[in-house]
């Protein structure tokens, strides 16, 4: 016996991430719609994050699937979740690190972690490529905080949870990152004006 859902698609789309997360392990039709909405809201961010780290679209796609599967598992395990975006990036980060460890079988340094020169990415703009190259010169702590803030759109609280440092510390790192980046890119920025 199948019952029609009492929640319309419009109502669902207005629900918060956390509300949708709770619905993931409920009635199949609603769970499907909730999953779809959560995927639409966060997949680009997670996928971008994975691609930047791994520089391999196929592996990034595998990890995106894994990440959303973990979210689903958490929902079915009735695990409490208040910050879906942060959870997704945290899981993606761990899986990406594992993947890189598997691939290179060596200690992973964040030197090669964020935004390398983006080889073969001819579609990226010149300035974006320079930002990527400039980021490589930053200390890894500042680079990762800056990337999570600027590229992945996470707030300071979310980043602090992911990196397991204080929010104030994150603010300082991001600020320093911005300043250094500006310093490096300044000649280019002024020339292009």
């Amino acid at each position, binding site marked *: 016996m*199948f019952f029609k859902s009492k929640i319309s698609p419009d109502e669902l789309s207005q629900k918060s991430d956390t509300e949708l997360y709770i619905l993931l392990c409920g009635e199949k039709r609603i769970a499907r719609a909730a999953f779809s909405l959560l995927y639409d809201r966060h997949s680009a961010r997670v996928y971008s994050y994975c691609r930047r780290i791994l520089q391999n679209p196929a592996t990034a796609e595998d990890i995106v699937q894994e990440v959303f599967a973990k979210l689903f598992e958490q929902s079915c395990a009735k695990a409490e979740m208040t910050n879906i975006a942060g959870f997704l990036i945290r899981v993606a980060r761990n899986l990406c690190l594992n993947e890189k460890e598997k691939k290179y079988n060596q200690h992973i340094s964040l030197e090669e972690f964020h935004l390398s020169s983006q080889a073969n990415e001819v579609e990226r703009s010149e300035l974006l490529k320079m930002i990527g190259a400039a980021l490589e010169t930053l200390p890894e702590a500042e680079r990762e905080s800056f990337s999570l803030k*600027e590229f992945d759109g996470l707030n300071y609280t979310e980043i602090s949870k992911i990196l397991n440092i204080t929010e104030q510390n994150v603010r300082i790192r991001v600020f320093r990152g*911005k300043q250094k980046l500006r310093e490096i890119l*300044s000649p280019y*920025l*002024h020339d292009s004006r």
Partner: protein
Amino acid sequence: MNNPLNLSNSELLSAYLDGELSPQSEKQLFEQLASNDALRSEMRDLLAIHKEIETGAVYYPPMALKAAAMAKVGLGSVGAAGVFTAALPFVQKAFIPVASALVGSLMTVAVFMNLMPDAESFKKNSAENSFKNDVEKGEIPANVILSESEESAADGQREKMDSRPHPELGEGGNDKSGDNPSRLRRVSLKKEDTFGEKVFKNKEELLKTASLENNSFKNIAIVTIPEKNFLKENITQNSFKSNDNPASLKEVLKTIEDEFTTDGILPKKSSWLDNMQFEIRGFSLANYPQPRTLPQSDPIFKNMAVGAYYTLNDENAVGMEFGQEAFSQKFGGIDEDSIYFTYQQYLVLPWAGISYRYTPDFLGFKNIRPLGGITLAGTTGGPVGRAMIGAKLFPESPVSMIVGAEGAVFAYQYQDKIFTSPKFGVMYGVSVKF
């Protein structure tokens, strides 16, 4: 943020760009910006970097990834009927093991049915041995059983011989007239038996022999393998027995000449539908190169083909096939910046084309026949060639199983170069005829 920590102008600017500045601090920052060229320049720089990252740093995942992610957690594809969708992941997982088990069981049964003596042949062998013993003991003259013509010269012994259960037909198989009937059987029965029966490979041979030995043929009847019940019915309905009557013999021969095919003695097909066979098969083929991405769509009907074939004769058939499956493509080219790049995609393509099937009878097994086939098909991306080799189980029955190996090659063009995507694996399916 009210700037309780006496943040520097740069820190205020950074907080402002993060959208975390209080109205009071914003006012303070704008006052500074109005009078500070360096701070204005810094703001322009940071805004440029922020804007560039915001607009250019997003990669969008492929469309198919969503369906794959949903399928991974058992939420399946959207839009199909509820029960079917819910059952689909299970069906997909169970299909290959169940199909393999079914095909394996049927193959085992078929092999045993071919190799093990069945009840009828056991009875025949027993009767044959008993009969041979009688001959060896001298109870029955050997010349009685050699041939039909010699049989006719040994009338005195016939009654004794015919009083035995017929070795093939048992108690009910003897003609009530007491004569030993000559028997005509299907082409698939290769051996000749030794009880005065002649086995003919085809109609022509029968008719030729009948005309040459017309005088020696006392009786003729059509007897066939047990499952061909329709022929037995024909015997009753059309009186395909001469019953020692020369007129009747002629009638039977004429009936055979008119109503049976040349290859064997199966009745001629009456309509085109009788010559049709339909097939549905699934295949599990590995792609070369191995796909690194997921298929770009996930239709329910995939890795399957359906076909309709016109049977030209017992061994050959031609027809049309339709199918759908994913092909892993890897191709390279020169982009507008003269850089060579490679691209991979995993497209699900429907295909349709013409097909040929060959089921030779040279093994002589009635329940298994070799199977070969080729298909030339087209897709929206390029031509597809397919070939299969395997076995057909129970080829005579209305529903038969097919199993074997199958390969396919999809050819496509990119920037004046031809690329191919080969696949190879196993196939299994069902063939139906009317």
